[in-house]
């Protein structure tokens, strides 16, 4: 099982769970992002995810390193699905483990926020009244996304 993976296959949350378990883990947190139908009054029909896969997997691995620097001993595995996803399908699974629960929760939440900052994956919403690439117009500043440094 790869720890960091981006591809078109259905996700397996329990496989990621098994990846981050070991004898001194007391807490595992799994985050599973699923495709939901309604956002306010807008109805989603399907989502389309596209990625620059080799770089995306590197960035996921970087997030894993950031986690283990911030929460020593914490482990992180992340799989993101791409392609066409229907309502209820799983788009991302993040598994974090630690000896104590506070770290597992915080590490997990950190990972999903970082995915939304630095991992080259793009989502196109297909609503009943049109389609749109999300995040394509505003907010981004040119340069490196915050916190990305190289050794």
């Amino acid at each position, binding site marked *: 099982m790869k720890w960091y993976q981006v591809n078109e296959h259905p996700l397996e949350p329990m496989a990621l769970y098994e990846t981050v378990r070991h004898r001194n883990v007391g807490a595992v947190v799994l985050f599973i992002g699923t495709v939901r139908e309604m956002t306010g009054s807008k109805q989603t029909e399907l989502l389309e995810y596209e990625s620059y896969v080799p770089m995306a997997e590197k960035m996921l691995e970087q997030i894993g390193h950031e986690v283990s620097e911030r929460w020593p001993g914490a482990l992180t595995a992340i799989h993101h699905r791409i392609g066409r996803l229907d309502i209820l399908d799983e788009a991302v699974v993040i598994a974090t483990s630690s000896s104590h629960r506070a770290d597992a929760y915080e590490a997990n939440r950190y990972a999903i926020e970082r995915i939304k900052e630095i991992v080259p994956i793009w989502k196109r919403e297909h609503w009943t009244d049109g389609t749109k690439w999300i995040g394509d*117009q505003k907010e*981004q500043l040119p340069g490196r996304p915050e916190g990305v440094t190289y050794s």
Partner: protein
Amino acid sequence: MIEVLCFAHVAEELAMRSYTVSAPTTIASLREGLMERGVSGAERLMFAVNERYETDDYMIEDGDTVAVIPMVSGG
């Protein structure tokens, strides 16, 4: 030659998944090219060279692979 990869709305607006430019060049120069072609939000696009984020003054060499990175929206 430098290969430039395009994704999401950039690929859609250019109707291209990739294009090539002559080496050497800079990210600033690629950005200008995208603005000229009318890519929306080109002034805010990010760029990666060989799968690392780099800034506008980065000098791109022959054989490098560049990716144009619109704002990400995974998760």
